[in-house]
């Protein structure tokens, strides 16, 4: 186990270095840059722009900028946002709660509903339910989230007036109930796609298990169908889902780009888009490293958990 962990750690370090080099290069090669936001300001002369570039250290060769950034990162300094002058980690910290709230609840909905639909689809294969679920999943996967979001806002906010048209809470009302009210639509809309993915995987995994010998044996031994399903089928079908969950873990903290925009949700996805839009390099790089680390961690945790629950797998 310790050899496995050491091995994975070294792999991860190499991976992070590669990710950071690619990220840094792509950002800096992108034409435009942090001064573009002042491009239309008649009072910002080219002199002013050059001065700012100099002050922000953007005039140095890219290689120097990269090593400076990486060296600081190694010492725990993630840099400072060009836009608001605060440390990158505190910028991330200010947005993480919103994302955790939204992604957490939508993930819970997606896993619960998706698992149920997947299992029921598999056990009632080719039934009306299965067909509806299959078509529903296809629809949910093919229609963009922002469309669902806008239609949802139109129907439930503007026409019916049941749910708020976005925002995390009403200004002047910070009660838990108010947060919950605002959470319903974005988390459901976001969950739609994940339910679709999750239910398709779950259906396939369940079908795989259902046709295996040990299930037939259990049935032959006279184990009640409900117990066969819960203990033998679902338990085993969930194994591949652990890996899927591991892959999805980072998104819980990195946020949803589109949904957060449509629902005016002040999370990490919005932060990423905005930072990219203003070429706020320190924040973009910070978010990139943050999600890379989470992805590595998510996969690692999934591997360990699978090994723990499945005695057939040994980590080496």
């Amino acid at each position, binding site marked *: 186990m310790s050899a496995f962990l050491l091995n994975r750690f070294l792999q991860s370090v190499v991976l992070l270095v590669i990710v950071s080099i690619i990220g840094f290069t792509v950002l800096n090669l992108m034409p435009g840059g942090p001064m*573009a936001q002042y491009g239309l300001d*008649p*009072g910002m002369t080219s002199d002013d722009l050059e001065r*700012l570039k100099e002050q922000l250290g953007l005039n140095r060769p890219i290689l120097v900028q990269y090593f400076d950034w990486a060296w600081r990162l190694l010492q725990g300094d993630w840099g400072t946002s060009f836009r608001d*002058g605060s440390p990158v980690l505190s910028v991330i910290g200010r947005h993480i709660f919103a994302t955790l709230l939204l992604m957490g609840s939508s993930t819970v909905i997606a896993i619960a509903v998706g698992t149920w639909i997947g299992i029921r689809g598999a056990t009632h294969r080719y039934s009306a339910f299965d067909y509806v679920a299959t078509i529903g999943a296809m629809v949910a996967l093919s229609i963009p989230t922002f469309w669902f979001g806008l239609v949802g806002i139109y129907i439930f906010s*503007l026409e019916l007036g049941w749910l708020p048209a976005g925002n995390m809470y009403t200004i002047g009302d910070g009660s838990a109930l108010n947060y919950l009210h605002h959470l319903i639509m974005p988390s459901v809309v976001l969950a739609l796609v994940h339910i679709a993915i999750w239910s398709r995987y779950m259906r396939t995994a369940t079908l795989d298990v259902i046709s295996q010998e040990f299930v037939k044996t259990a049935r032959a031994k006279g184990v009640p169908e409900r117990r066969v399903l819960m203990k033998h089928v679902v338990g085993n079908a969930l194994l591949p889902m652990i890996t899927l969950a591991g892959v999805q873990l980072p998104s819980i903290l990195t946020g949803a780009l589109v949904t957060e925009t449509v629902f005016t949700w002040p999370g990490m996805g919005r932060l990423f888009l905005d930072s990219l839009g203003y070429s706020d390099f320190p924040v973009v790089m910070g978010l990139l490293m943050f999600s890379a680390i989470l992805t590595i961690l998510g996969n690692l945790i999934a591997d360990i958990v699978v090994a723990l629950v499945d005695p057939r797998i040994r980590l080496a």
Partner: protein
Amino acid sequence: MIKTSRTGASYSRRQALRMMAAGGAVGLFAPQLLGKPAFAQTPPTAPTGRVVVGLSQEPTVFNPLMAHIEVDDGVNFSMFDALFRISPEGVIVPNLALEVPDQTNGGISADGLQWRIKLRDDVRWHDGQPFTAEDVKYTLELIVNPDFRAWRTTGHALVRDITVVSPTEITWRMEEAFAPYLNFLTETFMVPKHVLEAATDLNENTFNQSPIGTGAFKWGQRIAGDNLELVANPDYFGEGPYIEQLFFKYIPDNTVLYTQFRSGDIDLVGQAYISPDNYAEAATLPERVVTLVPKTSVETFYLNVEKPQFKDRAVREALYLAIDRQAIIDALNYGVPTVTETFMPKMSFYYNPDLPKHEFNLERAAQMLDEAGWLPGADGIRVKDGVRLSFANSTTAGAHLREQAQQFIQQTFAEIGVEMTIANLPSAVMWGDFWTLSQFDSAMSGINFLIGADPDVTNRFHTKAITAKGGKGSNNAQYSNPEVDALLEEGSRTFDPEARRAIYLKVQEIIRHDLPFLPLFANTSVFGQKEGLQGFVPNTNTRTESWNTAAWYWA
């Protein structure tokens, strides 16, 4: 009840004289918007209630002297004061200063070099410390401190020998006479010396995240990515504030911004306002007041005149003739904007109304190109001396009304044998080096040519402002005309409004003739607010709708 109104652009002789006396440019609105409406109730005696302003970009820079963008201005105007303010009519009025200096009251010497400013003695910072001339000196020095990430330095860089005469009086000398500086000072907010002097880092310190000003509102709290709350400053020296809490709510998507105005989540649609395609619907919303307000920016078809295709004035003139401007205004922009022939805002005292009127005439355009020797080649595209009349047009990708206009222009250009391709870019790319170093062929954008409300356009049209040729400025069209250069230099040295007016009328005439850009229309913003919000007055001499939040209140 539905209420819409269009603010006009007419001014009376008396108003004009009053404004000239104040030494400012003139921006004018219909009289009913100038004062408080007749039915207005009186503001409350103590600050009550809250106003939520929706913005499509997030304010993030709270030190008003640091490099920032338009959207940060609403916060600056609410939390800070400058020496002067500029009224919606374009009159420069005292703010922290006691009076506006000019050459008649001795505030500015006859040669324009010596400035003397008298300050109010009843102003306190939000932390209770008195505001004095030391703060003014500190502010002006900070802006030109090479270690400080300052915003615009034009004008400030000319200031020398700042002397604090007394706590309420300050003098300085200008390196050269520079009339626009008075206008620049209306956007130069004063910062507290005693707070910033104690900071170890000028650029990264606690002041940036919880600033202290002298303004009508104090810092409340910021929920990053969502909203910023300011609270009433009961000790404000000026009028107001009448509302207790002022929120700036960040709504990243323009459609959602409008939706939240409809749903009532926001009380006022701030920048980027209501899109013209939503205007007709917005005007019918119950309990909302929707107003058309002329903007200072002009929608332009910018030509990079150093490109071989555009060097010939006949080509520029022919292209102008080949644009069906009225159709772009009426069909694509729902009749919201208005026609113009110049870069000068129509509300300005310096606006030239007597320029030749544009006409849409493809025949004449074709004829003009024929006469200039641009003849159709084998593929139907005109050629002269090996240069094909083919070019790209670029703007911010995703600006849908502008993209429609591009396609429309592309079609009429094709009819006279001109090939225009569309090459749009994300804004971070479009307005970077591509724009500032004039790498584009032609570009389309709403351009604000003035700094503040001053008519000086040296940065836009002077030869020495061509960055691509090593100059300093924003002459992105690479336009160069010695006559214009001379006029601009004279204009920036001239303090007398009447004399300045003659200069800038001439500048507009020459630029209308030379056509370094083709004016498509004068932009108009669609403002939207809830009924009952009083004291809100648009001011196109500032960059923000929230320039006078101190005067807002609920009826």
